[in-house]
């Protein structure tokens, strides 16, 4: 009997296998997700705790730049909370690999003695090789962050920072890498900050403790109580802070005494130095005195030499002057001589001219004499000729007379023949030629007349000749007479001229005599001049020689003197040098002492007592874990609620369907509790198995996947405890309660009816008109099947709400998941692409920097395309000056105009650009939200922890990381009365992808005024790593939500169909085609899905808002909006799931047997 009853239970499980499984699955997913995600934070905390405990990470660390002494350690050891103390050494150095790359390394000490008997803190995990044992051995950090080129067995060299000596720190600079280790002091990529190199530590390393030549400067402490405490727990934090306080107190005293001792020592040294300085000064003064004296005597000699020289020169000058006088005189004489000589020469010239003239005159006179003679002879000739003429004339007359006688003879006594005639002619006195002429004439006595005529003709021509001669004689006589007269004149003139010449000749002779006399005088004078000249030349020669001699002597003296001078100068220089050297040395020593004193004064009043918070990544890990914890707070709860809701309805439906069976059992006489127990048991089995499975899977899957994702960032080994009582209990209770309570409620409700009622077919739920029918135009237009669909949708309210909530929940979860991813990624995209447009920031020391320096720095770096000096200072802000202050960045760009190219300030919703106003401040959005203020309000800014100033808020701008307040330099100056000191430069780069960051930074760091440089790409990359892990978590959320959506949809559709098998069978009998049957069911599903999706939108927006609100930390703002694509994705995924589920349902519908329609409804 009991068996049969139990059979009912198992059979109902078997018959409703799918339902049972789906309830189980939903519970499993819900519980698994809820518990798993919730367990992640404690698992992460636990894993870290285990790791820290295993590696025995210190609880507190003391770092004292002045070193720690044995008595300090003693004192610490004596403190009541302290369990153990371990001394350590730490030094930041430069490490150069064999490839030549230099890194900033933080060197720690390793002492194997510490680790004996399972003791020792900060145990190293050896990844490869071994730990260093002896001098010159080093173990470097293992893992992905260490430079790859450092290999175990290789060698590296170490170097000290500027201003330090390596040999004062370590005995050697070459180290052999013995192995690679993980130190629990570093759990993520962060290696901390330093003051050397580019400002950040690149890696850490361990060397044997005995290698350190400096004093121990670190003390690691574990406390007695910490063993029992969880790291990160409030209890632990409180405890370690308390011990920190105590140690601080001790530290103050220890530091004071140490500082006092040191300063006393320094002061003693200072006094000593003063004394040394004094003595040195005295010594140098003496030496200087000596030198001075030597110089004086030298000066005296120089003066003497000068005087002597002057005297000698004077004498020589006098001589020279005398000689000059002589010369002058001689020159005068010479000039006189020249003058006389010239005069003489002129005279001589004149004489020669006169002489020449006289000579000419003589010639003329002689000529005249010769002419006179010539004229006389001529005249004689003329006289002779005249005489001849007269003779001729007489002859002519005789001839003529002879001839006339002849004629008469011839005529009167004619010769008989020719002989007679020639004889006749011969006898006649006539000139021969005429005789010849006449003789030649033929003579004939009978023709005597012709001869006579001829003779007559001759007579006549002779007579003509006679007249001509006569005339000529007459003329000649006249001319002769004239000539004779003229000659008489000339003869007179000649005589007179001769007399004159004779006189001139005498005069000339006298002049010549005088000239010759003068010449003699001149020659004498000349010879005298010559003598004088010679004398003078000799004198000059003598003078010159004397001068040369003097010059030579003086030169020698002078050379001696200047040599002495040079010697003196050298000596002086030497002294100066020595003095400077001595003083520099002393000054250096003094400076050292001063700076040591200053440093000492600047040294903290106490030790640097640090808790584990100082471990890089320690707080980051907690933040990451807590962030997941925050995600876990809400998201899985929604998730779980959706799952529980669906389970609850599933359960309800199932029991309602089993109504007939309940009736039978009741009719058979089973008691109400027994029947109830039956269904309770069903619910319990389903929910418990589901929950247990979910817990078993969830506790492992979620923490381990998430932790593995974070494992990339953290060196903390993944360790899963796998069970969390609190979450197990909560989820088990919630899961079973929701299902069993639903089962209980429904069973009890059903059992209230009498068995007969139960056995009868359940009164069909009354059909009801729905509100759409009240809109006739709409309703009448709907096709028939649509009407059914709508009626169905609105009639089964429970199913409606269940489906809509189920699908809506899933869509909402998907939207939340995607939206979370959007919100997280928006931080990066918006902050670094939309808002921060600059590529890097150079941090400057404002005290060493002016505008020129900035220009110089920028000019030295060709990669920089533009820059803007800016003030970036810490400021604390409060809404009213009393409330809690929030840490912000006060930004004062030098130029507001170009600022937009570096930081694009804009309002988030409207995207409207915001300019920094002349009056008032622009603040970032999250800050405004935290302060609860808006444009127009006043906020109070405390600058550098000093005075508080009110600022007027002008606008609120979009911003995601940290808080910012932007003001103009003018407004800042107006408010604070101080000029802004630009301590930063925003830069934009030309080829930012090509810039080698390390080299770029190192080049910048070479400038004295540059304190540091940051490239935004690095910031982005680092931030991206964090976000990627968070994204991974979100991815898990999305996948889980998807999974839940599939199961929920399947379950809902399944319920929907099971409930309506009869109806579906009936319409099949009526002749609905398979497609029509599908549509008859799907249409409803589709509409419900659409309504569900729309509800999901609302739920998603609310969930998302809530989740990001819970997750957000104060210094960060998440992207506020879900992206459009995320809605689309969520909708598409939900639709896809619906389609898949409906597709599966098609086969189920097809399998529905029409015979079902014939069965009685139960």
């Amino acid at each position: 009997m009991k068996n049969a009853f139990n059979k009912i239970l198992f059979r109902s499980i078997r018959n409703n296998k799918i339902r049972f499984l789906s309830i189980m699955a939903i519970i499993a997913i819900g519980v698994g997700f809820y518990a798993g995600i919730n367990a992640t934070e404690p698992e992460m905390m636990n894993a870290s705790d285990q790791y820290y405990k295993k590696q025995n990470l210190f609880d507190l660390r003391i770092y004292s730049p002045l070193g720690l002494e044995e008595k300090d350690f003693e004192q610490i050891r004596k403190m009541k909370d302290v369990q153990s103390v371990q001394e350590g050494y730490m030094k930041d150095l430069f490490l150069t690999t064999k490839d030549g790359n230099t890194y900033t390394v933080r060197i720690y000490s390793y002492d194997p003695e510490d680790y004996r008997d399972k003791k020792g803190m900060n145990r190293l995990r050896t990844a490869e090789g071994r730990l260093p044992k002896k001098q010159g051995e080093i173990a470097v950090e293992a893992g992905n962050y260490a430079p790859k080129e450092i290999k175990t067995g290789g060698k590296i060299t170490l170097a000290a920072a500027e201003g330090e000596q390596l040999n004062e720190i370590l005995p050697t600079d070459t180290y052999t890498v013995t192995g690679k280790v993980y130190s629990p002091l570093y759990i993520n990529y962060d290696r901390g900050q330093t003051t050397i190199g580019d400002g950040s530590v690149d890696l850490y390393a361990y060397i044997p403790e005995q290698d350190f030549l400096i004093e121990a400067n670190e003390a690691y402490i574990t406390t007695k109580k910490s063993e029992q405490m969880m790291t990160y727990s409030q209890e632990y934090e409180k405890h370690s802070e308390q011990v920190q306080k105590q140690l601080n107190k001790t530290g103050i005293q220890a530091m004071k005494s140490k500082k006092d001792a040191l300063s006393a020592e320094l002061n003693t040294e200072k006094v000593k130095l003063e004394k040394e300085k004094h003595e040195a000064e005295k010594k140098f003064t003496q030496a200087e005195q000596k030198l001075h004296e030597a110089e004086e005597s030298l000066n005296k000699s120089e003066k003497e030499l000068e005087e002597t020289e002057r005297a000698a020169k004077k004498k020589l000058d006098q001589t020279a002057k005398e000689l000059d006088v002589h010369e002058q005189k001689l020159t005068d004489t010479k000039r006189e001589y020249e003058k006389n000589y010239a005069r003489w020469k002129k005279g001589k010239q004149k004489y020669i001219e006169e002489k020449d003239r006289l000579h000419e005159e003589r010639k003329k006179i002689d000529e005249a004499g010769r002419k006179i003679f010539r004229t006389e002879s001529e005249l004689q000739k003329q006289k002779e000729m005249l005489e001849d003429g007269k003779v001729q004339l007489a002859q002519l007359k005789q001839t003529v007379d002879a001839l006339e006688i002849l004629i008469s003879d011839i005529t009167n006594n004619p010769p008989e023949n020719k002989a007679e005639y020639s004889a006749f002619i011969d006898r006649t006195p006539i000139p021969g030629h005429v005789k010849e002429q006449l003789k030649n004439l033929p003579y004939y006595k009978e023709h005597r007349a012709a001869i006579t005529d001829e003779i007559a003709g001759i007579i006549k021509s002779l007579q003509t000749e006679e007249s001509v001669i006569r005339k000529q004689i007459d003329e000649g006589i006249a001319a002769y007479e004239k000539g004779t007269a003229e000659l008489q004149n000339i003869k007179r003139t000649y005589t007179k001229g001769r007399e004159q010449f004779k006189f001139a000749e005498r005069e000339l002779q006298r002049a010549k005599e005088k000239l010759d006399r003068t010449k003699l005088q001149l020659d004498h004078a000349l010879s005298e001049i010559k003598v004088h000249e010679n004398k003078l030349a000799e004198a000059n020669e003598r003078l010159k020689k004397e001068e040369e001699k003097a010059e030579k002597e003086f030169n020698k003296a002078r050379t001696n003197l200047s040599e002495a001078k040079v010697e003196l100068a050298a000596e002086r220089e030497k002294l100066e040098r020595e003095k400077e050297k001595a003083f520099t040395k002393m000054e250096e020593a003094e400076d050292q002492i001063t700076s040591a004193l200053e440093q000492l004064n600047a040294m903290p009043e106490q030790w640097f007592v640090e808790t584990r918070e100082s471990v890089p990544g320690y707080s980051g890990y907690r933040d990451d874990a807590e962030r997941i914890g925050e995600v876990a707070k809400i998201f899985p709860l929604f998730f779980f609620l959706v799952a529980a809701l669906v389970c609850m309805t599933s359960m309800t439906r199932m029991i309602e369907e089993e109504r007939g069976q309940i009736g039978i059992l009741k009719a058979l006489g089973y008691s109400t509790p027994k029947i109830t127990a039956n269904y309770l048991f069903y619910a319990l089995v389903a929910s418990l198995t589901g929950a247990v499975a979910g817990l078993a899977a969830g506790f492992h899957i979620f923490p381990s996947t998430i932790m593995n994702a974070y494992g990339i960032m953290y060196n903390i080994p993944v360790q899963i405890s796998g069970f969390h009582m609190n979450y197990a209990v909560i989820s088990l209770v919630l899961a079973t309660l929701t299902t069993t309570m639903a089962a209980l409620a429904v069973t009890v409700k059903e059992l209230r009816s009498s068995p007969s009622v139960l056995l009868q077919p359940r009164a069909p739920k009354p059909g009801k008109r729905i509100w759409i029918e009240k809109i006739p135009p709409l309703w009448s237009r709907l096709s028939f099947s649509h009407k059914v669909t709508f009626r169905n949708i609105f009639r089964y309210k429970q199913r409606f709400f269940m489906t809509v909530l189920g699908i809506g929940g899933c869509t909402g979860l998907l939207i939340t998941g995607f939206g979370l991813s959007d919100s997280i990624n928006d931080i990066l995209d918006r902050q670094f692409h939309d808002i921060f447009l600059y590529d890097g920031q150079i941090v400057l020391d404002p005290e060493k920097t002016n505008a020129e320096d900035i220009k110089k720095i920028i000019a030295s770096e060709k990669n920089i395309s533009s820059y803007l000096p800016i003030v970036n200072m810490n400021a604390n802000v409060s809404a009213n000056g009393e409330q809690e202050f929030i840490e912000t960045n006060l930004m004062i760009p030098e130029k507001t105009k170009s600022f937009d190219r570096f930081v694009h300030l804009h309002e988030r919703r409207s995207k409207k650009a915001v300019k920094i106003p002349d009056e008032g401040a622009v603040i970032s959005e999250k800050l405004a939200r935290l302060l609860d203020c808006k444009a127009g309000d006043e906020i109070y800014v405390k600058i550098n922890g000093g005075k508080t100033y009110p600022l007027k808020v002008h606008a609120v701008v979009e911003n995601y990381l940290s808080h910012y307040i932007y003001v103009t330099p003018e407004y800042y100056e107006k408010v604070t009365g101080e000029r802004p000191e630009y301590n930063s430069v925003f830069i934009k780069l030309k080829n930012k992808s090509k810039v080698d960051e390390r080299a770029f930074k190192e080049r910048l760091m070479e400038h004295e005024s540059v304190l540091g440089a940051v490239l935004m790409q690095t910031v982005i990359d680092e931030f991206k790593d964090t976000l990627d892990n968070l994204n991974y978590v979100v991815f898990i959320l999305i996948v889980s939500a998807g999974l839940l959506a599939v199961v929920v949809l399947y379950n809902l559709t399944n319920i929907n169909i099971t409930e309506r098998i009869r109806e579906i069978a009936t319409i099949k009998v009526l002749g609905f085609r398979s497609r029509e049957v599908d549509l008859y069911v799907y249409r409803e599903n589709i509409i419900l899905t659409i309504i569900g999706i729309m509800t999901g939108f609302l739920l998603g927006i609310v969930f998302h808002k809530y989740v990001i609100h819970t997750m957000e930390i104060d210094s960060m703002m998440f992207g506020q909006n879900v992206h459009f694509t995320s809605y689309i994705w969520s909708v598409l995924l939900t639709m896809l799931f619906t389609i898949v589920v409906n597709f599966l349902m098609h086969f189920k519908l097809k399998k529905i047997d029409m015979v079902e329609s014939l069965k009685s409804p139960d």
Partner: protein
Amino acid sequence: MSFIQFRNVHKRYQMGEVTIHAVKGISFNIEQGEFTVVVGASGAGKTTVLNLLGGMDSLSEGTIIVNGKEISSYNERQLTEYRRNEIGFVFQFYNLVPNLTAKENVELAAQLSKNPLDPEKVLEQVGLKDRMDNFPAQLSGGEQQRVAIARALVKNPQLLLCDEPTGALDDKTGKNVLKLLQDTAKQTDMTVIMITHNSALTAMADKVIRMKSGEITKIETNEHPLPVERIEW
């Protein structure tokens, strides 16, 4: 040729390892316009016959010819069309769509048919003119069955199949329903096949097929079927 011909029809169900032989090689003919009652005890196989005839189930062996068409060779799709166009079905438990009013339930069927009758007229015919807009839950059992009959008739089917239409009704109501069926058959010359376990109802049939354990024990023909009013049980 008869309107309906069953030729050596077998139907076997495989239930796990057991084979149930529900119909064991039956043969019969039904003429057009005949009102046939199939009677037999529970498990006699009468419902199977109705299922086979209604195209809701496929036979294992034999031939079924309806209106000259061999429906036994039809595939599922053809059977759907057959049900859609030729068959009207009245269920024992009415099987109205609870979410539709009386009129809408009728319209639902009318939509399927090629040449449906006017739903309102049919409803008037079954005497539910005033209750057309009521939901099934607001109707009594008899009224619901009338709606079901109207739903079957509105398709203007060749063949009306009724599965114990009075099984869930009290006598008086049952009689009304049966009368409606009988009158309709007569008026429209529709072939009606009704299965019942109530032998009393055989009197109203033109033809009676008696079944037992999957076999036909007897086929009777009533020359003068009685009007329902005169049958007492």
